């Protein structure tokens, strides 16, 4: 099994298929620097999350097998998968026969990582894994509430798809790589205390992890009798050997020229220190590990990292006046809906996320279908103002570029979703930012 915590003795008894620990143990033997506490946790958290995700996938795959025991069997497997993701401490946890969930599920581990890796090269991959895991959790919850086997199966299929995206592939960099990619191509895959070396150069000593600007470029191992064990998540894209040692290059190798030329300071530092201490600390040491940031907050922050600024404050203020005359009778003065649906706040944005609405979907409804009894009756400028007002009320930040008066392709790729609010006092209703 995978590690829960990195322990020096932990490697030897692990199953041969899971090769991370044994390699890490080999590398640990020659550790040269006492690790900072937070560094230890980053890798361990990621490994623990990976284990939980794989356990959940395994439960779901079992649920795809023929039914030996009726509904309870399926529901038990779905609950076990959910437990693997949320952990025992979560309020949604229910005991399930044969399950093996521990205190912290994949979500907890990914949350901790996500809270502390904002600038790390693995941040986008971990955030992707986090969001996909959250999606999987909601599908599993939905599955558990189903009464019909076909809908249960659809939910489980959706959960599985999300989990596969969360696991990702170690052959991919960035968000597409998911957790496996983060482990296989960045410093996240380096166990605490392991020897690292600047990847712009060949390693002086083996075993060692080759690092450049936070990316894991290679793993160098001694060849004992012509054999070396590679981390299975590594997915080496190229292997070099001189008979004494083996260097397995990761998917990040392609970045090497750019990284080595661009960031000379980091390179020098890494060459001197043999581990990317500064870049890791910069990512990790500003906050304590267990600082209580709830799931929603982190999920929302993952979104704010790319929150677009789509309108101007002036437009939003003009839009408010138009809303008061054209929209208020059905959507309500607080935008919570009277005869028609709410158009701001938690329910609205959660519906948008659930249904996969994009900015363009919202725009086309406002521009072409509203107001209900007189669609298309406003000028394009006024519709753009109303859009600005709706975005502002939904806590999207204003910018310098006005909301467009005609359709723009880019809106199709911007999801409509819950936006984080730093200042709770600014909100008059849950998730609504009032425009004055």
């Amino acid at each position, binding site marked *: 099994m995978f590690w829960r915590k990195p322990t020096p003795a932990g490697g030897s008894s692990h199953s041969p298929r899971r090769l991370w620990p044994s390699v890490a143990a080999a590398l640990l033997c020659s550790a040269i620097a006492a690790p900072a506490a937070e560094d230890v946790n980053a890798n361990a958290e990621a490994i623990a999350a990976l284990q939980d995700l794989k356990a959940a996938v395994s439960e779901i795959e079992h649920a795809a097998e023929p039914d030996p025991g*009726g*509904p*309870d069997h*399926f*529901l038990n497997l779905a609950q076990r998968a959910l437990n693997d993701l949320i952990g025992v401490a979560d309020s949604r946890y229910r005991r399930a026969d044969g399950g093996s969930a521990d205190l912290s599920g994949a979500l907890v581990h990914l949350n901790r990582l996500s809270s502390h890796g904002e600038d790390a090269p693995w941040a986008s991959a971990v955030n992707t894994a986090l969001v996909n895991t959250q999606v999987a959790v909601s599908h599993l919850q939905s599955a558990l*509430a189903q*009464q*019909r*086997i*076909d*809908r*249960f199966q*659809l939910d489980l299929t959706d959960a599985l798809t999300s989990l596969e995206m969360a696991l990702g592939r170690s052959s991919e960099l960035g968000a597409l790589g998911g957790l496996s990619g983060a482990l296989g191509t960045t410093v996240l895959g380096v166990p605490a205390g392991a020897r690292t070396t600047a990847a712009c150069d060949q390693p002086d000593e083996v075993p060692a992890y080759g690092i450049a600007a936070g990316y894991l470029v290679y793993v160098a191992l001694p060849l004992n009798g012509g054999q070396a064990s590679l981390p299975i998540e590594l997915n080496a894209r190229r292997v070099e050997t001189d008979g004494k040692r083996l260097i397995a290059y990761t998917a990040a190798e392609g970045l090497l020229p750019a990284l080595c030329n661009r960031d000379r300071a980091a390179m020098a530092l890494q060459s001197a220190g043999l581990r990317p201490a500064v870049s890791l600390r910069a990512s990790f040491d500003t906050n304590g590990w267990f600082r209580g940031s709830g799931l929603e907050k982190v999920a929302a922050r993952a979104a704010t990292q790319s929150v677009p600024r789509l309108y101007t404050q002036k437009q939003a203020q003009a839009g408010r006046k138009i809303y008061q005359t054209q929209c208020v*009778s*059905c959507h*309500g003065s607080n935008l919570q*809906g*009277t*005869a*028609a*649906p*709410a158009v701001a706040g938690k*329910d609205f944005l959660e*519906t948008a996320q*659930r*249904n*996969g*609405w994009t900015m363009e*979907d919202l725009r*086309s*409804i406002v521009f*072409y*279908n509203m107001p*209900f*009894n*007189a*669609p*298309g*009756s406003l000028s394009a400028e006024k519709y753009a103002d109303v859009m600005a007002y709706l975005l502002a009320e939904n806590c999207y930040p204003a910018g310098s570029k006005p909301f467009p008066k005609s359709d723009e392709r880019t809106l199709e790729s911007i999801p409509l979703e819950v936006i984080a609010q730093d200042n709770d006092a600014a909100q008059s209703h849950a998730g609504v930012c009032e425009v004055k």
Partner: protein
Amino acid sequence: MKLLFNSVLFRPGRLAVAIAGITLSAAVASAAVGNAPTRDDYVQAGQKDGYWLLPARSYSGNRYIANNQINRDDVGQLKRVWKFKVPDEGPMEGVPIVWNDMMYVTSAHDHVYALDAKSGDLKWEFQYKPHVIAFAANRGVALMDGNVYVATLDGHLLALDAQTGHKVWDQETVHDPRNSFYTMAPVPYKDMLLLGVSNGDWGGVGNISAFDPKTGRRIWQWNTVPGPGEPGHETWSGDSWKRGGAASWGGVAIDPSSDALYITCGNPQPDFLGTLRQGKNLYSDSLVALDISGTKPQVKWYHQFIAHDTHDWDPAMPPVLIKAKVDGEERSVLAVGDKAGTFWVVDASTGQLLDRTAVSFQKGMSTDPTKEGTIACPNTNGGVEYNGGAYDPNTNTFFVPSTNQCGLWKAQDRAVYIAGQFYLGGAFPSRVGPDSGWFNAIDMDTGVFKWRHQFALPANGSALVTGGGVVFTGELNGKFDAFDTKDGKLLWQYDTGSPIAAPAAAYNIGGTEYIAVASGGAGNLRVPELSDKDAGAMVSVFALRG
């Protein structure tokens, strides 16, 4: 993937819980069982003055009461004896259900209020906070087995204890909650609750289903769009049937002697872009007779009013099953109005069309919407709406309100399905010209108006007709009217202060006859001619003495 309709409930765990729950509530409610309406009460609902059990009073749906305590001579003395202010915003579209001196009222967001029918005192209330897909509306409850049943805007069917309002069970019964919801009142019939889903402008396929009142389990489902291999499937080109719509959301009529269920099915989708769904698009815009005596409904006959509708002109009005004199002959017929402004009379045993009367201004009806735009009347909120009308057996007259409103339709060149949004292939039309309404008295024998009363606003207030020669209707300006059935003379009027789009109910307690009507926000019925005056959502109850 093929949907397994009626697939077995595969959760013995929950089933066991539900059964245990029923045993319990049966024991607790043994005192209340005597209070619960029986099958006979439902079959005779049209003959008993004491209660108002079904949305349109009876399985016939005629909204007629024989009681003549309130009659053309004394209706002028009618007073409001109590008012219940509904603590929810939005339109009030439901009929109060009255049984055993209790009144059950629903609000726009699926709250349920149990009131003392004599005094208006609140006995209990049930609050709900549904996600609203498009229109906030609830059109009433059903009573059965000591429970109150309400179907919600987020696609749930709930059972509440009729004595306390406490939830007995709660089941999500729609197949896709992203585009499906309920506005209809469930209809008790034998050991079933009949319920149609609203999803016919949001990219779903309609169905009418029967649910087990004890658990919420689906007993059967009849889809309003025929799937592959079913008769009528060929009336949809390509895969268009998959988002065909034709939702049955208004209400039903039932002939208990033959287990015949009559439903109207809504418009096809995408509403305004017919090129994507060539063919007649069955059973959209149709009246369908189903035999529900077996384990699955069987189509006895259907009559399609508009083949290949491109204007959202569905026959939203619940059908009314009556014995009437038509063309000099006594026969069993169904009367239905549609949003195209046509009042139809169909033979109940064969589905043959017997008569039709235009009750709204009609224009441009045979032209499909274009990208540039075409004008047609009535608009989608025009014609005869979901609230329907009433039949007076004493004068062989059908009373139904209708709306004159024109629209400019614009089709788009494509229809994009966005989960949880309208699936129209265009936009709802913009209003063109002035709006007005009629209250029509149609002679069933000839199809000609006996009289018409014109309103300055759209008319959606249904009708309630009494043995005393009085017919009631509500107006969008908040006025509740009583007309003489003979000549349309306005006998009495009361201003509730809020738009009326709900049908009225009547009941009798201790020898006093009461008339109840709800009023509330105008919602999407709002037109420029309507003043902003709105006294909020309420139920008003009238009597000669109180």
